[in-house]
């Protein structure tokens, strides 16, 4: 069966017309040859996809020739071998070839020419293609060879979308159709495997499972590929850095500023601006929250008992000096022209990386009861702008907290944002940022610190369409309580409470909510949780225009308000418990807006958000979220960590309900142990109660299942054959024989049943061949065999 045999399609090779030819290899070799062609085609597609960018160009041709020659040679060698020999060596060969790609990788990486994981996997598959060409000489490997070939082509198409790959794929499809025809023809000529009729039971559940998985992934309404994000190690998406990755944010070399297609980062063409082309942060506050009201300045106050007044309140006057401010007394948004609706349809910038993410734009420390004042730079806290080069890229270094907080912070994580319509000089920075990088920007004078932790560029606005890379660390809440003895020591201005009668009530509320808890992170969480339950989040709620202390109205009376009221309330509650807090305004990158196709999150005017930060000490701030519905990004968790957490939680829950679980376990164990008796009892009761046991077919099936459970026999044994071997008394044998006769008449007599009206079935037979008796017979048989 060499390659140059006759025409592969032989129309008249049916065994009936040519009986002596049915075991010869005419049709098999046609299938083999077409399988070789199919694997060759997929090899061409695959090699083109991964080697098309090799320089010089002749390398691609070289790899193509190597691939094709090895497939053809392997195929010819396979046809010279006996089928049995091919069968015996194929699995080992496939495994060896596949593993080669992995074994080679460390060497390549050492030599500096490593490949990303997906290419390691894929090239392993390409290397096995010649083995499949070899193995498909034996009929049972043909289907697997076809599947491998299909997978190779699918991967290639996903890897590189170029016209040449598309063209080659079409060619592969043509070969594939011919291959399918040949396989079908050879099957109809009676080459089916004996195994196919016997051992395919698993195929149905597996098929259903796969189908259900596909349906489930489609029903989520997301791109099904996104379900695997973070689980499949690959280029991009997992946040892991690798210098061998092909592309992706934070993977390998930093994302290159768009050179050929600047606006490909996000779909901005379909997002026309209605009014204000590029809003500034203050425009956004006004659009989102409503314009601040002009209020009368007055100092109405009620005198407090000395013990109710915090020392810090006296320092208020000293802190009131910042330039920009944030008012908590605002007009309803509906009074404004336009509104955020216009802006919400358009992204101001796109954020790549994990979300939800809080991005700081402004930090406020002093609160006079109505206005938050922007924190002014402190003395000793005006750091220099410094650059450091990582992987040949200039990174601006953000000052870091002392080593004491090292354990609290996860390893740096990458995000990238790309301003599209954003008229701001401040860079939206995630909390605990460590570095900022803009391609080719390495001059210190391009940046300056606008506030503590707020970086701005010394130009009119952020560069449009240029990606800004951000590295930041997450605070690990799980270790705060363990590592920090006390939270809260900080400058006075972070403790100051405004002077208003409501403040005493707020302090009382905080004390009440935190009663019975020790000072620390968990206390902060408890107070904020109570705040979330206490008030309702309503973005459109506004304070009454003549309110002197809007947050007091919100917290104590209306209990309904937007996020800045929650944030203000949170700050005041925590300050009254002695923690250092500040109000932060900026953006909340909403995970529900994540675009799974573009793999980024658009941030628009509707994402303006206000929240609190608690000072853990030094320069370390922890983001806390007083507003319901907003989530703080947790540190990236390893698979082991997730497993560990789930396991420990499950264990704790199990310990709580151990009596119930123990009882349940015993019950389940008993049910598993006696499952045969249980299901038999249910079945017997059912068929007897419904009268179906009168039907000999039903009765025999029941008996047969009992026999199968206790004394299984090969699939080819007939009921009578089995009865002959059964060591039971002659009476029972006769009973069973009669039952079998009637059951067979019911099952195989067709429409003219051989059953007679006088065939009264004795249900006693069901009792005579009970599971218990069969078990006794079995133990007697084994005892006899042992003797």
């Amino acid at each position, binding site marked *: 069966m060499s390659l140059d045999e006759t025409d592969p399609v032989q129309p008249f090779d049916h*065994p*009936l017309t040519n*009986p*002596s030819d*049915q*075991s010869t290899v005419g049709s098999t070799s046609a299938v083999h040859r077409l399988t070789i062609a199919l694997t060759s085609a997929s090899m061409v597609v695959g090699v083109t996809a991964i080697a098309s960018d090799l320089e010089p160009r002749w390398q691609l041709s070289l790899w193509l020739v190597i691939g094709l020659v090895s497939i053809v040679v392997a195929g010819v060698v396979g046809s010279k071998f006996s*089928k*049995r020999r091919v069968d015996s060596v194929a699995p080992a060969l496939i495994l060896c070839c596949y593993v080669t790609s992995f074994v080679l990788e460390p060497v390549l990486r050492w030599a500096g020419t490593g490949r990303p994981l997906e290419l390691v996997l894929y090239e392993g598959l390409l290397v096995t293609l010649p083995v499949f060409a070899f193995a498909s000489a034996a009929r049972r490997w043909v289907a697997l060879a076809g599947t491998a070939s299909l997978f190779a082509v699918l991967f290639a198409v996903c890897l590189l979308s170029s016209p040449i790959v598309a063209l080659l794929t079409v060619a592969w499809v043509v070969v594939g159709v011919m291959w399918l025809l040949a396989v079908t023809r050879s099957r109809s000529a*009676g*080459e*089916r*495997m*004996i195994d196919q*009729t*016997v051992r395919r039971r698993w195929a149905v559940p597996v098929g259903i499972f796969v189908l259900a998985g596909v349906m489930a992934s489609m029903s989520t309404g997301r791109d099904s590929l996104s379900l695997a994000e973070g689980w499949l190690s690959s280029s991009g998406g997992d946040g892991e850095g690798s210098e061998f990755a092909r592309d992706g944010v934070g993977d390998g070399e930093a994302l290159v500023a768009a050179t050929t297609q600047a606006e490909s980062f996000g779909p901005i063409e379909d997002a026309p601006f209605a009014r204000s082309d590029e809003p500034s942060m203050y425009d956004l506050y006004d659009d989102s929250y409503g314009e601040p009201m002009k209020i009368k300045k007055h100092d109405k106050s009620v005198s407090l008992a000395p013990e109710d007044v915090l020392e810090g309140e006296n320092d208020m006057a000293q802190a009131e000096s910042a330039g920009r401010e944030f008012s908590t007394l605002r007009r309803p948004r509906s009074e404004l022209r336009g509104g955020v609706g216009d802006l919400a349809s358009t992204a101001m910038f796109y954020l790549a990386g994990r979300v939800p993410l809080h991005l700081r734009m402004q930090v406020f420390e002093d609160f006079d009861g109505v206005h938050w004042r922007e924190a002014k730079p402190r003395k000793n806290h005006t750091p220099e702008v410094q650059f450091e080069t990582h992987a040949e890229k200039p990174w601006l270094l953000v000052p870091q907290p002392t080593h004491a907080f090292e354990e609290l912070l996860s390893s740096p994580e990458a995000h990238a944002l790309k301003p599209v319509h954003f008229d701001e000089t401040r860079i939206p920075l995630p909390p605990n940022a460590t570095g900022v990088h803009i391609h080719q920007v390495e001059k210190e004078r391009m940046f300056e610190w606008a506030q503590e932790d707020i970086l701005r560029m010394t130009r009119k606005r952020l560069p449009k369409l240029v990606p800004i890379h951000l590295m930041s660390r997450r605070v690990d809440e799980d270790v705060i309580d363990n590592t920090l003895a006390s939270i809260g020591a900080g400058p006075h201005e972070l403790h100051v409470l405004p002077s208003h009668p409501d403040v005493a009530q707020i302090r009382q509320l905080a004390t009440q909510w935190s009663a019975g808890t020790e000072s620390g992170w968990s206390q902060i969480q408890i107070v904020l949780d109570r705040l979330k339950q206490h008030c309702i989040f309503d973005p459109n709620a506004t304070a009454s225009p003549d309110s002197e202390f809007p947050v007091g109205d919100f917290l104590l009376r209306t209990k309904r308000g937007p996020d800045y009221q929650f944030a203000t309330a949170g700050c005041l509650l925590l300050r009254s418990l002695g923690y250092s807090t500040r109000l932060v305004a900026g953006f909340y990158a909403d995970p529900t807006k994540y675009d799974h196709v573009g793999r980024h999150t658009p941030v628009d005017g509707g994402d303006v958000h206000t929240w609190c930060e608690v000072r853990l000490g030094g320069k370390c701030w922890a983001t806390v979220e007083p507003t319901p519905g907003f989530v703080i990004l947790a540190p990236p968790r390893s698979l082991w960590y997730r497993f560990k957490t789930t396991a420990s939680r499950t264990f704790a829950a199990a310990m709580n309900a151990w009596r119930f679980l123990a009882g349940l376990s015993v019950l389940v164990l008993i049910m598993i142990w006696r499952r045969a008796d249980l299901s038999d009892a249910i079945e017997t009761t059912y068929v007897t109660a419904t009268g179906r046991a009168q*039907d*000999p*077919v039903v009765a*025999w*099936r029941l008996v*047969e299942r009992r026999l199968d459970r206790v004394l299984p026999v*090969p*699939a*080819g*044994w*007939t*009921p*009578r*054959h089995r009865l002959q071997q059964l060591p039971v008394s002659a009476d029972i044998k006769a009973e069973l024989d009669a039952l*079998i006769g009637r*059951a*067979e*008449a*019911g*099952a*195989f*007599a*067709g*429409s*003219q*049943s*051989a*059953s*007679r*009206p006088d*065939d009264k079935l004795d249900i006693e037979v069901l009792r005579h061949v009970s599971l218990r008796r069969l078990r006794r017979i079995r133990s007697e048989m084994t005892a006899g065999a042992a003797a």
Partner: protein
Amino acid sequence: MTTAVLEQPDRQTHGEQANLNNTLSAIAAVRDKLNEALRGKADVVEQVIVCLLAKGHLLLEDMPGLGKTTLAKALADAVGGTFGRVQCTPDLLPSDITGFNLYNQKSHEFDFRSGPVFSDILLADEINRATPRTQSALLEAMAERQVTVDTERYQLSRTFFVIATQNPTDQHGTYPLPEAQLDRFAMKLSVGYPAAEDEKRMLADAVLCDKPIDKASVEPTLAEGQLAAIQREVAAVTVTEPIQDYLVRLGEATRSHRDIVIGVSPRGLLTLQRCAQATALIAGRDFVTPDDVQHVARPVLGVRLATDRTSIVQLLDELLNEIPIPKV
């Protein structure tokens, strides 16, 4: 399905029952006669009857002197037909089997002198000693139930039944039957040596009787045309779809088995089904069960499978154990 029939027993069913009883008693009579002629070989006799009722031909492979001829003659006597016999040798010509045209000088015409195939039961002894040419003449007669002599076609008996024998040892100077010809036989049986008890009784009988070999000279037990009628009844026995699926599974398994060089042909499957039908009728049923198929599968498949293994019996046992039977 069963209950519907249970409630309406009609006259036709009773008529059929009486008919079936007649058939069964006729078969029992044939069985008794054969058992009398061939002592202690009830299972062989059973298969011979199946083969006869299924309109198949039988190949007996055994040592000389085990009663092959006795069986054939007893069968001819029992079914009441004529008996023909050919002793195959290398110089046997096709015309020795089919007959030939002889010029009649008186009438100036060719008269046809019929050969031994013009009988109801033909014993072709040591068929593998005949030349392939002669073998194929016989095989045409077996397959078509007709012979062609000098362009003239002659119909054979409707119940024409061939028992061919061959000797498994002493292969010198023989022409083994090719697979295509083996396929024309319904089944291959071997009689085997009788048990000690039966052999002793046989010896005792021989003392009383002058011609122990011709013990089988018995009265015909079947009325004229009864065999053909029973054969028609056999063909009408119900085979439901699950049973036919099982037959197809068996066939496919023989074709894809790695130790079987040539699997069963569609004609072989037809034969298997017909033999299973005959078994069912003999058992008094008008439908086929998996037991019927398995009962005849070994002799029917044994004659037509070419295998690499030394023992086809073991191979068939494996196959029948592995292929799942249709569940009740």
